[in-house]
C-alpha cells in the first residue's frame, strides 16, 4: 500500500490525501458532496453509473471520481453547470428506462434514486418513457426482486460476491436488455447458491430488492453493517 501523501485542490480547496485514495473518497472525507449510485463504501468501485463524474484540469474528458486516484497537484471541480446538466440527464435516462413509480414503491421515501433526483433538482424527464414489461420475482420466501425498479448498479452482485462469497447475483444481456439474475437465470427461490443473508436487499439503492411483505414506503434499507464487515475481513 502506497502511503505517500498527495496534495490537490477540490473546488478550489487545498486537500491532502493518501496516494491510494480516489477523488470521491477524498471529496467525501472533506465534506464535499459528489452524487453517486453504484458506489458504496465497502464494495469495490466499478464506475458504472457515471453520476460521480468530475472535471479535472488538463484532462480532455470528464472522469468518474469513484475510480480515479488522486494525483499530486490535481485541480478537481465537482460542481459546474456542465456536470449538473450531465448528472440530471443520467438520472432522466435511468427514470425513463424502467418503471420507477415512486408513489406505490416499497422504497418510496427511502430510495437513493428518488432522493438524488430531489437533490439535483430534477423536475421533468425529457426522454420518452420506455415502459418495459418486466417481471417481479417473488419466488424467494423472504425477498422480492422487482426488475422494474432496478438501475443495474450491481451493488447486489458485488456484495454477494465480495462480502457474502456466494456470487448468487450476476448480470445477463447487454445494454438496455441487461438484467441482474440469480444463479443461471433461475427463479431466486430456486437458487442453490443463495444463503438468504439479505445483504443484497440492504445495499440495493432502490425498491428493486426488498423484504417480502413490506408495504408501500416501508422498505428502509440498513447499510451500516457493510463498512464493519469489510473492516473485519480485511484489517483484522
Amino acid at each position, binding site marked *: 500500500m502506497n502511503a505517500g501523501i498527495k496534495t490537490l485542490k477540490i473546488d478550489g480547496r487545498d486537500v491532502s490525501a493518501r496516494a491510494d485514495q480516489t477523488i470521491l473518497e477524498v471529496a467525501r472525507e472533506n465534506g464535499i458532496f459528489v452524487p453517486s449510485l453504484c458506489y458504496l463504501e465497502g464494495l469495490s468501485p466499478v464506475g458504472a453509473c457515471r453520476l460521480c463524474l468530475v472535471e479535472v484540469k488538463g484532462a480532455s474528458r470528464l472522469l468518474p471520481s469513484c475510480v480515479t486516484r488522486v494525483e499530486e497537484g490535481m485541480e478537481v471541480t465537482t460542481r459546474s453547470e456542465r456536470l449538473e446538466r450531465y448528472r440530471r440527464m443520467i438520472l432522466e435516462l435511468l427514470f425513463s428506462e424502467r418503471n420507477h413509480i415512486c*408513489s406505490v414503491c*416499497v422504497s418510496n421515501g427511502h430510495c437513493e434514486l428518488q432522493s438524488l433526483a430531489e437533490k439535483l433538482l430534477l423536475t421533468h424527464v425529457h426522454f420518452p418513457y420506455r415502459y418495459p414489461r418486466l417481471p417481479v420475482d417473488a419466488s424467494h420466501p423472504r425477498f422480492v426482486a422487482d426488475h422494474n425498479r432496478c438501475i443495474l448498479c450491481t451493488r447486489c452482485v458485488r456484495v454477494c460476491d465480495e462480502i457474502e462469497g456466494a456470487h448468487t447475483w450476476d448480470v445477463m444481456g447487454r445494454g438496455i436488455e441487461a438484467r441482474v439474475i440469480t444463479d443461471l437465470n433461475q427463479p431466486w427461490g430456486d437458487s442453490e447458491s443463495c444463503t438468504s443473508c439479505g445483504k443484497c436487499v440492504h445495499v440495493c439503492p432502490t425498491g428493486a430488492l426488498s423484504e*417480502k411483505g413490506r*408495504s408501500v414506503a*416501508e422498505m428502509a434499507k440498513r447499510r451500516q453493517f457493510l463498512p464493519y464487515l469489510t473492516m473485519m475481513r480485511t484489517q483484522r
Partner: protein
Amino acid sequence: MSQRRIVIDPVTRIEGHARISLFLDENGQVRDARLHVTQFRAFEKLCEGRPFTEMPSLMARICGICPVSHLIASAKACDQILGTRIPPAAVQLRRVLNLAQLVQSHALNFFHLSAPDLLLGMDGDPARRNLFGLIESHPQMARDGIRLRQFGQQIIERLAGKRIHPAWVVAGGVSEPMTAEARDAILAGIPEAMTIVQRTLGWFKNAMDNFREEAAAFANFPTFFLGLVGPDGELEHYDGRIRVVDAAGRVVADNLPPERYRDYIGEAVEPDSYLKSPYYKPEGYPDGIYRVGPLARLNLADRCGTHAADQEWAEFRQLERGAVLSSFYYHYARLIEILYALERIEQILQDQQILSRHVRAHATANHPEGIGVAEAPRGTLIHHYRVDEAGVIQWANLIIATGHNNLAMNRGILQAARRFVHGDRLSEGALNRVEAVIRAFDPCLSCSTHAAGRMPLIVELRGPEGELLDEVKRAG
C-alpha cells in the same frame, strides 16, 4: 325531423367525466336518456404482475377523494390472501379511518357540490352557483362545510400520516399504532363537528318543502337497495353481511356472505359507456336495478346504532312507508350518516384498547384468492384479487359504489328530463336539474371507471336520425 337528441357534456360538480344524451320523440318529448361515462383507466389490468402487498396503496390511487375506501377494501382482500384474523385494534383503527373518510366525502358532496343548488336555487345564475357563490351568500354554511371536511381529513392525517393516499393501511392490519395525542385531538374536535352537522340537518329538514318537485322527480322510483349491515341489522361500513331490500322496504335477501358477491351480483356491459351496469342477479337484467350508498344504507338498516343518529334515522324513515325512494334524499341520508360517523368514532376512541400496540398480523400469501368488501361513502365497494403461489397478482375485479348505481342513475336522468326538459332547446334550469340528479347520487366516475380527472358535463339533444339539435357544455 321526428326524433331528436340533447347532449349535456360535460356534467359539472361531480367527480370524473361524463356526458348525458337525451333522445326526443316527434313531439319533442324525452323518449330516452343515457349517461355515458367517457373515461377509461384499466386498474384491474395494470395491477397484474405486482406483489399483492402493494395493492392497497396501488388501488388507493384510483381516487383522490376516497383513497381510504379503496385502501380498506383492498387491505381486506389482502387479509384473506394472508389468511389471518387481524388484531382487534387494527380493525377498530381501520373502522375509524373509514368513518373519517365518510365524514369528509359526504361533507364535500353536500356543502361543496350540492349546496349551491340547494341554497342558490336550481335556476340560479350558473356563474355564481358554486362554492364561491355560497361563500358570498351563505358564509356560515360554507364555513361549516369546509370545517367539517377538514375535521374528517385531519382524522385521516392524524391516524395515517397524510390526508390523501396514506400508506398506513396494510395487508394484515395497519402499520403504526395510534398515539394518545392523536386520539385526544380527534376527541376534542367531535363536539364542534356534531354542532355543525346538527345545525345543517335542522336547516335541511326545514328547507325540504322547497324541493318537493325535485324530490318527486329525482330518480324517484322503486328499486332494490343493497349494502352491508351489522350482525344486529345496524348500520355498518367496515364489516358485516350483505342485505337486499325491495322498494317496500321488505328484506328480500339477508346475511349474504360478501365474498360470494358473484352469486347475486351480475355485471352487464353497455356499448356506450365505460361504466359497467351491475344488477341483482335473481331479478335479472335490467329488472335487478338496485341502489347503494347512504340512501340505500338507511333503507337497509334496522337502526343506526348510535343515539342521535337513531333519532334522525327514525324521522327519515317516516318520509315514506317502505323504503325512501327519491334519490333527492341521498342528501338527507348523507347528513345523518355524518352524524352517525361522528358518534361512532367517539365511541370507538373511548375504548382504551384502541391504543394497543399490536396492530399488524404478519403472514405470507397463504390463499390464492381474496375478496374485500366495505361500504365506501358512495356505497358498497368490492375488491377481488387472485394471486399465484408467490403472492403476485394474476387477476383483479373491482365493483365500485358508483357502478352499482349506474342503472338507477340512467333511469333517474330519464325521469328528471321528462319532467323538466321540453322542446328542442335546453333551459339552464332544466339542464341543471338533470345534472343535479347525478349529483344527488354523488357519483365518483374516476373511481367507477377507475379513471382520473375533473368532471365536466356535456348534454346533447339529438333528433331521431341522431342529428345534433342542441348542445350545452360546461367546463369542470
